[in-house]
C-alpha cells in the first residue's frame, strides 16, 4: 500500500504528519517503553538551554476544564548533556528530531542552535520564543515583531538545519509576529504555545501553581489554535506545524484543514499515552471517510 500520510517539509521527510510536541515527551525515553518511536513522523524534544535548568517550584501543574495549566519552567539537563546523551540515545530510531531551542539572551540561543543543529539526527530546530513560564528568555522574544525577526535571523545564520519558530498565542496580532519571523528567514512556523492562565485554590483563594500563572493547554485551547493557524496560513508562505489541544484524528484533520502541514500532539500524551500511534493508525480511515487519497489534499481546504 502506498503511503497516504507522508509529508515533505523543509528539512523533514515525515512518514506521517504526527509528532509529539516539545515539553510533552521528554527526550523520548519514557514513551519508548510504551511503543516504537520510529512510528512517529518526528519528535519535538524538550526545550534545551545552554545551561542546566532546574525549573520552577512545585506544584507545577493544575487541572482545568478540558485542559491543564503547567509552569515547569524549561527544566532540562543543558546543551552538553543533550548532545552527549539524549540525542545519541535517539539515534537508534528512524525518526527525525526537531530540537526545541530556548535561551535568555540572543547569544545563548545562537550557541545552542549552532551546536545542536549539527547533531546527526536533528533535522530541524524549533526556536522557542514563546515559553510563558520563565522570567526572562522565552516569551519576550515572541511578543515584539522586530525582536522576533532579529532573533530568527541570528539563529538562522548559524543553524545547519531549517529553523521553525514557535509562536505564542499571548499577543495582539499573531499574524504580525508570523510575518516578522518569515522576514527573518524562518523556514516554518510551529504554533501555538500555551495560553497564559491561572487557577485559584477553592479554599485558600491563592494560585494553585507555585509560579502563579501557568500555560493552558489541552482540548480547551483548540479553537484558539485553529483560528490562529487559519489566519497565519493565509498571511505567510512558509509551512506551519499546528498544535493546541490535539487529541484524536479529527483534530488532526481540523488543523490541516485550517492550513497546517503537520500536527503536533501535546497534553493528550499525558492522558492517552498511546495517542500518537493511535492517531497515525486511524488517519487512513479518516481519509477514506472524507474521500481523500492522500493527507496532503486536506491541507488548507478551509481556504479553498
Amino acid at each position, binding site marked *: 500500500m502506498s503511503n497516504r500520510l507522508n509529508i515533505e517539509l523543509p528539512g523533514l521527510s515525515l512518514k506521517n504528519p504526527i509528532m509529539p510536541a516539545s*515539553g510533552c515527551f521528554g527526550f523520548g525515553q519514557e*514513551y519508548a517503553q510504551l511503543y516504537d518511536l520510529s512510528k512517529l513522523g518526528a519528535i519535538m524534544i524538550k526545550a534545551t538551554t545552554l545551561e542546566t535548568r*532546574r525549573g520552577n517550584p*512545585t506544584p507545577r*501543574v493544575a487541572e482545568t476544564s478540558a485542559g491543564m495549566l503547567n509552569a515547569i519552567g524549561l*527544566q532540562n539537563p543543558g546543551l552538553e548533556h543533550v548532545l552527549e546523551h539524549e540525542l545519541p540515545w535517539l539515534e537508534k530510531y528512524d525518526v527525525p528530531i526537531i530540537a526545541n531551542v530556548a535561551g535568555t539572551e540572543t547569544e545563548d540561543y545562537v550557541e545552542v542552535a549552532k551546536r545542536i543543529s549539527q547533531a546527526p539526527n536533528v533535522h530541524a530546530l524549533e526556536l522557542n520564543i514563546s515559553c510563558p513560564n520563565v522570567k526572562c528568555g522565552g516569551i519576550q522574544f515572541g511578543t515584539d515583531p522586530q525582536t522576533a525577526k532579529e532573533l530568527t535571523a541570528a539563529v538562522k545564520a548559524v543553524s545547519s538545519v531549517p529553523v521553525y519558530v514557535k509562536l505564542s498565542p499571548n499577543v495582539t496580532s499573531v499574524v504580525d509576529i508570523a510575518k516578522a519571523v518569515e522576514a527573518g528567514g524562518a523556514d516554518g512556523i510551529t504554533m501555538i504555545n500555551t495560553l497564559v492562565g491561572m487557577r485559584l485554590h477553592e479554599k485558600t483563594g491563592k494560585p494553585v501553581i507555585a509560579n502563579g500563572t501557568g500555560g493552558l493547554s489541552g482540548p480547551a485551547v483548540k479553537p484558539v489554535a485553529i483560528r490562529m493557524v487559519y489566519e497565519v496560513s493565509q498571511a505567510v508562505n512558509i509551512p506551519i506545524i499546528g498544535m493546541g489541544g490535539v487529541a484524536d484524528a479529527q483534530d488532526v484533520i481540523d488543523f490541516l484543514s485550517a492550513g497546517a502541514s503537520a500536527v503536533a500532539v501535546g497534553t493528550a*500524551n*499525558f*492522558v492517552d499515552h498511546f495517542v500518537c500511534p493511535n492517531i497515525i493508525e486511524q488517519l487512513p480511515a479518516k481519509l477514506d471517510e472524507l474521500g481523500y487519497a492522500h493527507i496532503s489534499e486536506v491541507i488548507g481546504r478551509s481556504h479553498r
Partner: protein
Amino acid sequence: MIQQERMKVVRQKQIADDIFELTLIGQLTLEMKEPGQFVHIRVEDHYEPSLRRPISIAEIDHDAMQFKMIYRAGGKGTKILSTKKAGDEVDVLGPLGNGFPIEEAAPGDTALLVGGGIGVPPLYELSKRLNERGVKTIHVLGFQSAANVFYEQQFQALGDTYIVTADGTQGTKGFVTDLLAEVKPEFDVFYSCGPLPMLSALEKFYPEKKGFLSFEERMGCGIGACYACICDTTDGDYKKVCSDGPVFPKGVVAL
C-alpha cells in the same frame, strides 16, 4: 512493563468515610511486581476531567489476575471513579514507579510499617510480601478520625497493629510519632507512606534506622516525561516522584 488496559471492575466497596476499595481484573495485573507501585487511572474517555489520577496498589492477586486499590473519593475524578460498578471498565496505565524493596528486610527481621490516611493502602501488599518472606511486621496506622479507619483487621491478621487518630476517637490520640514514643517498638527497618509532615517526623524520629519512604506529588504523565512531580534531593539534585520513586530510601529527598 508498563501497559495501558481497559480493566473490568470486579467489585467496588465503600470501606470508610469517603474511602473506597476497588477490585479490577485484567492482564495488566501480571506486570505488577513490587508493593508500593501505583497505577494511573483515567476515569472518563473524554477530557472532563482531563488528567489521570495516580492511585497506589493495595493488593495484588496474580492467580486471579486481580488487584485492589483503596482511594479517597475527595475530588472530581475520584468521585466519578467511586460510581463505577461491577462490569464497568476503567482505563488503567501501569504499573508505574518503583516500590518498596522487601529484600532490605531479611527473613527473621522485624519491619515497622507506618501509614497515614490514604498512605496506608500500599502497606498492605507490602506487609503480605514481608510476612511471606518470614519478616515480622508491626503496623502503625494513622487516621483523622474513627470514621476514616480501614483495614484494621486485615493488618491485625499480619502482625501487631496500632491505630492512631488525630481526634482520639479510636486508638491513641495524636500523631503516629506520639504512639511510637510510647510503644517504643523494636525493629530492623521501617517503611512508610503518608503525608509529608509524617514522613519528615518519622525520618527525624529514627535517625539511626534504615527506612524507605513513599512520596506523593501532583503528577502529569506519571512516567517521567513531563517534569511536573519533581522533588529536591539532599545532595542538591532532583528526582521525579513518579518514575524515580515514589519510594526512596530515607535521606534522599530533602524534607
